């Protein structure tokens, strides 16, 4: 019966693929490339299906959550509790006319919405969804994630430039300027992770966290913060959504897109959000493992719940925070996050060196590192903030002055008789 038990075992969905491939190889003696293609196609189709289902559900979930945050109800008309709203939205986008502006650069205008999908979806190829559930566990996975994310810029620029719209161009240029700054932060933040885990293979980062029972969230809090902020920039979520800042430049780089082309951008935004959440979960939150819980609960379920939790953070900030200005965002990247990220890499390197060379037991070293890094992160943020003048008393908020406490001009003209203009 062990075979049957394995067949029904939900903890590892990868073995279904394995059994299919074994069947192909052993019973049909298919050539290698067939199994190669089949396993790839199964993985891609599974990821796509999951992405689409997640996206459709999160359209509804995000709108409900934001409705909740905004003291309103949210969609509740289409279907029970508005559950069919995403379908209605999708149908609407499909049926609407996809207008192409007359002076648009047509091939590029068409290419933009297609290209925007690439970075969002290719990232999932290296994500370990569960035990043995990775499409391609590249040995340069972390670098791959960043490299693929950086191509997002090109797609956004193409979309914004080809629209021949000033708002779109402004949005595109904002994106280009922003992403090139925050890519650096992302690399530096993930460098801390790589230094600790000693591998750029995402599967091994997860294995490392599982082995030492230490999520990198606790060892690299500063890296997590900078990575999340940089990621919010990369996927255009509030408060970094200045490249599609609704109240300033209408919709930024996709101002001129309508119908299903706009739908592509809308979908790609969710996909990118999931991708970034997946990377965060894998690198910082232990991936599909959770202190041995993965023995009982399917690992992919743990992974997905963590992923949705991280995605919820993005929704939360969207419902809460105002937006920064482009120069403030750039200054924040270069003047605030970059020094902190550099210090973080230095500290992480020093700690790992001490750990390896000093031959300290991991049970002693890791808790110390965790506490030290948490304290360091808090101190650095507060200290650097004070140094840069963000926390000076005169920069703090204050209330309006009332007349009693007033040093201002008090201006009362002589009273005029009634009836006189």
């Amino acid at each position, binding site marked *: 019966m062990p075979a049957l038990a394995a067949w029904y075992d939900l903890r590892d969905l990868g073995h279904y693929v394995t059994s299919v491939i074994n069947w192909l190889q052993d019973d049909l003696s298919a050539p290698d490339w067939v199994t190669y293609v089949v396993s790839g196609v199964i993985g891609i189709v599974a990821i796509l299906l999951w992405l689409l289902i997640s996206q459709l559900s999160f359209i509804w979930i995000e709108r409900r959550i934001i409705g909740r945050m*905004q003291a309103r109800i949210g969609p509740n008309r289409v279907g029970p509790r508005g559950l069919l709203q995403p379908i209605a939205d999708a149908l609407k986008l499909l049926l609407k006319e996809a207008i192409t502006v007359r002076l648009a650069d047509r091939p590029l205008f068409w290419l933009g919405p297609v290209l925007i999908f690439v970075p969002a979806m290719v990232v999932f190829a290296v994500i370990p969804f569960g035990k043995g559930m990775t499409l391609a566990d590249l040995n340069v996975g972390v670098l791959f994630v960043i490299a693929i994310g950086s191509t997002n810029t090109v797609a956004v620029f193409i979309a914004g430039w080809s629209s021949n719209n000033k708002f779109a161009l402004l949005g595109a240029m904002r994106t280009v300027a922003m992403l090139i700054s925050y890519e650096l932060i992302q690399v530096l933040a993930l460098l801390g992770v790589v230094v600790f885990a000693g591998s750029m293979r995402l599967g091994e980062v997860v294995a490392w966290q599982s082995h030492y029972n230490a999520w990198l969230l606790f060892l690299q809090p500063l890296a997590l913060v900078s990575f999340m902020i940089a990621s919010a920039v990369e996927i255009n979520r509030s408060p970094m959504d200045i490249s599609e800042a609704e*109240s*300033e430049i209408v919709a930024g780089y996709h101002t001129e897109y309508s119908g299903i082309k706009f739908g592509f951008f809308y979908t790609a935004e969710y996909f990118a959000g999931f991708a970034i959440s997946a990377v965060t979960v894998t690198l910082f939150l232990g991936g599909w493992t959770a202190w041995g819980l993965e023995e009982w609960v399917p690992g992919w379920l743990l992974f997905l719940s963590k992923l949705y939790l991280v995605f919820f953070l993005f929704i939360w900030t*969207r419902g809460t*925070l105002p*937006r920064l*200005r482009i120069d403030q965002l750039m200054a924040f990247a270069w003047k605030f996050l970059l020094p902190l990220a550099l210090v973080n890499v230095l500290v992480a390197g020093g700690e790992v060196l001490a750990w390896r060379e000093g031959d300290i037991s991991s049970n002693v070293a890791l808790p110390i590192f965790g506490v030290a890094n948490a304290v360091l992160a808090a101190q650095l943020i507060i200290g650097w903030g004070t140094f840069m003048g963000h926390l000076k008393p005169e920069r703090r908020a204050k*209330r309006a002055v009332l007349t009693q406490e*007033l040093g201002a001009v008090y201006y009362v003209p002589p009273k005029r008789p009634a009836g006189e*203009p």
Partner: protein
Amino acid sequence: MPMKTEPFVVNIGPQHPSTHGVFRMRLTLDGERITDADMVIGYLHRSMEKLAEERSFTQVIPFTDRTDYVAAMTGNLAYVLAAEKLCGIEAPERAQWLRVIMSELQRFASHSMAVGVFANDCGAWQTPVMHMFREREKILDLFEMACGARLTTNYMRIGGVSRDIPPEFMPAAHKLLAELPKRMDEYEDLLVENEIIVARSRGVGVLPAELAIATSVSGPMLRASGVAWDIRKADPYAAYERLEFDICVGTNGDVYDRFLVRVAEMRQSIRILEQALAMIPDGPVAVDVPVALRPPAGEAYGRIESPRGELGFYVVSDGGPAPYRFHIRSPSYINLTPLRDLAIGATVADAIVILGSIDIVVGEVDR
């Protein structure tokens, strides 16, 4: 970095998410910096001033709802004051107090919308606005009780108000008033010390007091520049003389101060309302005024402190049943005067925030 770039003209509006109506700014940009700003108005012009000259003095009142459609009560009040001055009518005591109550409720509602929309312009995606709307809804419910309409109230009459408040108004108003300070605490916690709002608005669009006076700006915008000028104090109308309240004044005259002044004025409105609800006497709410009112020939200028500033109605009568000349000194329009000075040198994002902080109502700009 000074570079020879091509000037880049961007039209903000008339169709734009944050022009608060059909207002248009033509911004000439150098990168993201604004080098020139033009205002194009008139998209909502309805020729109110001319139309009013064809209506009887009472028939003009609905127009005043529709100039500043966010604060209809104060629009009514300003015109009615002008007409009363023209005819030499004095409204009864209870009507004066009702006018105070209604204008302060209206001020709270209008400011809450202004503050919420300002946060929206800063990029807080709809959340503050939705929360602010919650209180605004309750105030509009009170208006509905008093006069049957929520936005276009048409409540004030020459010589009083159109009808007395119903008995359920007072309990509802007291209940709302008990709730508002808590809500204000909430909003101040959410917005006033919000790091991003401070970063976005402090030092942006600084309007010096001299420029503010020179461009005859009024209302919260003027007070934010440090000039304590409030018509409720300077030229008291209705029952404001008997009420205790403070003028809220800013120190820097930037966008942030304008926002702070509005928030503080909401607090003052609560304070005024508490006094007014306690002090309102019984009695008639209107004096008898003939339907076909023919004021003596002459002219009058009635002004009040509307949520947006000095709202004045200049009415000339030639003894006939309709105003001979009818002019509205609308604060939204005049407050736009320094916009160009404020916008030049700022970025696009700043321009939006500056426009949001001026708090225009396009119906009042174009009339």
